[in-house]
């Protein structure tokens, strides 16, 4: 495997896209634990749609729809019905793992015959559309949060939802929107995994990348650019293992893979959650006087 900048970028894109989505959700106050599930249904339904229609773009659309649909269940229970985000998220992830595994086996056989799925075409050089879109979306989301009224309203829903309501916005709607956006991006991230990189689907192919994306949001201090940067760093560390495994190295490669998590943990140990974290993160908001 040839490791260069573009390969690393490509390798890091699924986590970066998912982490970008998670940033939006967390900024509105929702820890979208179901992100792993959104990625997995994205990877599966993206592959399925591309396989049946022959178009990777239809696959990408299907993946984003699947991710959004799964996140809608999450958002409905956690935002509107104020259920616990960890409980629902865990169930959503299990559901995605079970449904994609079972459907895949029942449709493509137990061993999973090698499918030839149309991969995403490359644009300029070896860079494809999703990679470019990641950059545009990162800058767009960063600017939206910093400059636009909507961005401010979304942030306020994550900081102090009561104030959001006082200002005439619906904190619940903003949180719903944040969660659905993160689901759509999670689905896209999954599709990139199956259609952009692998050209196939495998059971549990996300293998914890959704959780990794959640961790990167903390590492990147809830800032879109920082989060994507953190994800790229992880992709780099991850890709190093291949070149290190080939030759004998002084540093164990497991340490390198664990490095981003260790750094994230050290940041938390020394800086703590810090003032960057949305104040109402993970807390359900209930409108006064409603049942």
């Amino acid at each position: 495997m040839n490791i260069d900048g573009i390969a690393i970028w490509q390798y890091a894109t699924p986590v970066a896209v998912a982490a970008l989505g998670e940033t939006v959700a967390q900024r509105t106050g929702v820890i979208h634990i179901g992100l792993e599930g959104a990625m997995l249904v994205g990877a599966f339904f993206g592959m399925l749609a591309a396989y049946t229609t022959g178009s990777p773009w239809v696959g990408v659309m299907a993946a984003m729809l699947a991710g959004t649909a799964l996140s809608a269940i999450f958002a409905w229970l956690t935002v509107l019905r104020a259920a616990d985000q960890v409980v629902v998220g865990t169930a959503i992830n299990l559901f995605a793992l079970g449904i994609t595994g079972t459907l895949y086996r029942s449709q493509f056989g137990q061993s999973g015959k090698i499918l030839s799925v149309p991969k995403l075409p490359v644009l300029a050089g070896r860079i494809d559309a999703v990679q470019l879109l990641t950059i545009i979306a990162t800058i767009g989301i960063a600017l939206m949060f910093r400059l636009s009224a909507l961005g401010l309203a979304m942030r306020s829903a994550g900081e102090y939802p009561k104030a959001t309501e006082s200002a005439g916005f619906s904190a619940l709607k903003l949180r719903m929107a944040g969660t659905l956006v993160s689901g759509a991006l999670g689905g896209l991230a999954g599709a990139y995994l199956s259609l952009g990189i692998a050209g196939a689907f495998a059971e549990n192919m996300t293998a914890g990348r959704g959780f990794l994306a959640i961790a990167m949001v903390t590492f990147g201090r809830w800032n879109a650019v920082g989060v994507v940067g953190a994800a790229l760093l992880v992709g780099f560390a991850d890709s190093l293992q291949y070149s290190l495994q080939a030759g004998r190295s002084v540093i164990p490669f497991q340490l390198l893979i664990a490095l981003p998590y260790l750094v994230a943990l050290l940041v938390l140990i020394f800086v703590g959650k810090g003032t960057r974290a949305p104040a109402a993160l993970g807390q359900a908001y209930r409108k006064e006087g409603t049942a």
Partner: protein
Amino acid sequence: MTAQARGHALQAGSLILGVTIALIVALAALRIPVVDSVRLIGEGAFADRFALARTAVKSTPLLFCGLGMVVAWRAGMYNIGGEGQYITGALASAALAKWCLAMQWTGPVAVVLLILAAAFGGALWAAIAGWLFLRRGVEVVISTILLNFIAVQLLGYLTSGPLQEAKRQVPQTDLLPNELMLGRFDRQLDVHVGCILALVTAAALAIYLFRTVPGYRLRVVGENRRFAAVNYIKTDRVQMSAMAISGALCGLAGASEYLGIVGQLGNTFPQQWGFLGIPVALLGGLHPIATVFSAIGFGALFAGTDNLARFTTAGPAIVYVIQAVTVLAYVFIQTRRRPTPAEDT
């Protein structure tokens, strides 16, 4: 029958009914022959003593991890790091086992120490997350996710480095001799002492949570931290110890797999038991005794679907769907019943 017991029985009955309906609907929706599948699952889980042994063996780590979640979640600590604690527990045990083998020391005392080492390894890993929450305000959810990843890499490093087999070919530890493994009741069956230990632990935990003062304090802290604090309960200490106990229990799950079944650690050691403990505990209503039944129920489903996988395309993945749907239905019912008070922050 008291009203409380009737309530519990009703809850258990509706849960079993719910799981059965979810199973049938899932099978039908996925166009898998329902009757044959249910028969295959039943045979795989209960048909003979081998099937029953499989159910017991699958239920054991589920129960340990489920109990771990019960303690932490009851104290308001959303530990989702059971997987990492399961791994570090087993690693601590493996490190001690290597030393035992080097000293040529085996026997019951050594095995007990191996079990304790696993509890300690898990507790230590969970304590990091507890400390981060109490001293640095970091959500337990986030820190335990990070710690899960680090634990997996730690496993990879140790099994290809300091704890690797003597031959140094495969990244795994040496197979433990029988003298260092948990005792078995029958040579032909995998059922080991750990299965009984899990049941005893569940009973002990039920007494701790509902019949002792520290257990009462733990539940109060989980219900309402501020109320606990104004009543002079040391909330930090309570939550920290809840995390440590939770980690210790997940570490014991690691011990039961390592010392009871596989006897060596490698890349395939993590089997998601730490994650699956969460729905098991939730569907057990976060009560230790109900969690026993929930763990056995899902242990049977896993054993049964292993059997199903040998004859059809459906496999254990369908259990995840069933678990997920029942948890979501449970959440749905719970959030409808409870009137939501106005927030006073």
